[in-house]
């Protein structure tokens, strides 16, 4: 059943469906993070994005993140769905919902989840710019592969 809480989807994400998964009578707070496609990045205009995932491993890693959160912040519930395929400006790329008895844990755990996604989940973003295209290769979304090759940031 855990699997359903962590999904990779090629269909538009319905935010309320993700929120519903973490609803609980023990919860006093639910935080949601909605990652959307930005048009302008440092003066460059994005026309649309393409996300690719290594789906079975991505689901595994999302599940791992959920377990990490439940260890660090007990009594939380976590659900994450990440979209793949072509996304236009303002489309939703990722939704993270965390419920907890008190709000602080829900806020903290939610931020932790997006940071971990950018570190360990095998998903890649291809920017289709006004004047070209690049697979992005770093978690901070600002360093494209200059020669079209991966780049590790120190």
């Amino acid at each position, binding site marked *: 059943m855990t699997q359903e809480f962590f999904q990779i989807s090629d269909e538009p994400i319905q935010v309320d469906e993700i929120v519903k998964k973490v609803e609980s009578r023990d919860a006093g707070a639910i935080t949601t993070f909605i990652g959307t496609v930005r048009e302008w990045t440092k003066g460059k205009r994005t026309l649309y994005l393409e*996300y690719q*995932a*290594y789906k079975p491993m*991505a689901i595994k890693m999302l599940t791992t993140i959920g377990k990490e959160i439940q260890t660090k912040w007990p009594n939380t519930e976590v659900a994450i769905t990440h979209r793949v395929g072509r996304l236009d400006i303002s489309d939703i*790329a990722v939704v993270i919902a965390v419920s907890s008895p008190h709000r602080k844990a829900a806020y903290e755990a939610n931020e932790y989840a997006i940071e971990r996604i950018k570190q360990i989940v095998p*998903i890649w973003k*291809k920017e289709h710019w006004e004047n070209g295209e690049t697979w992005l290769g*770093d*978690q901070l979304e600002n360093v494209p592969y200059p020669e079209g090759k991966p780049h590790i940031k120190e």
Partner: protein
Amino acid sequence: MITVLLFAQLQEDAGTDQLELNIDEINVRELKERLQSDYNLSKLDQVMVAVNEEYALDDDVIKKGDTVAIIPPVSGG
């Protein structure tokens, strides 16, 4: 056979998302060297490698039947 999955830029460089290599046993470092020389994939020192959907280290051994994924720095979220 070892199945090698490629993603993002590496997939475009190789012109395929999957390679089948006729190898019985090889470690991660040797596989990266082999991909670099035989398939012209560069900068493989900067990628992560997953064996059967788990991240692996350079000295980990890959055996016949395993599925290996070459994972360039991720950019989800």
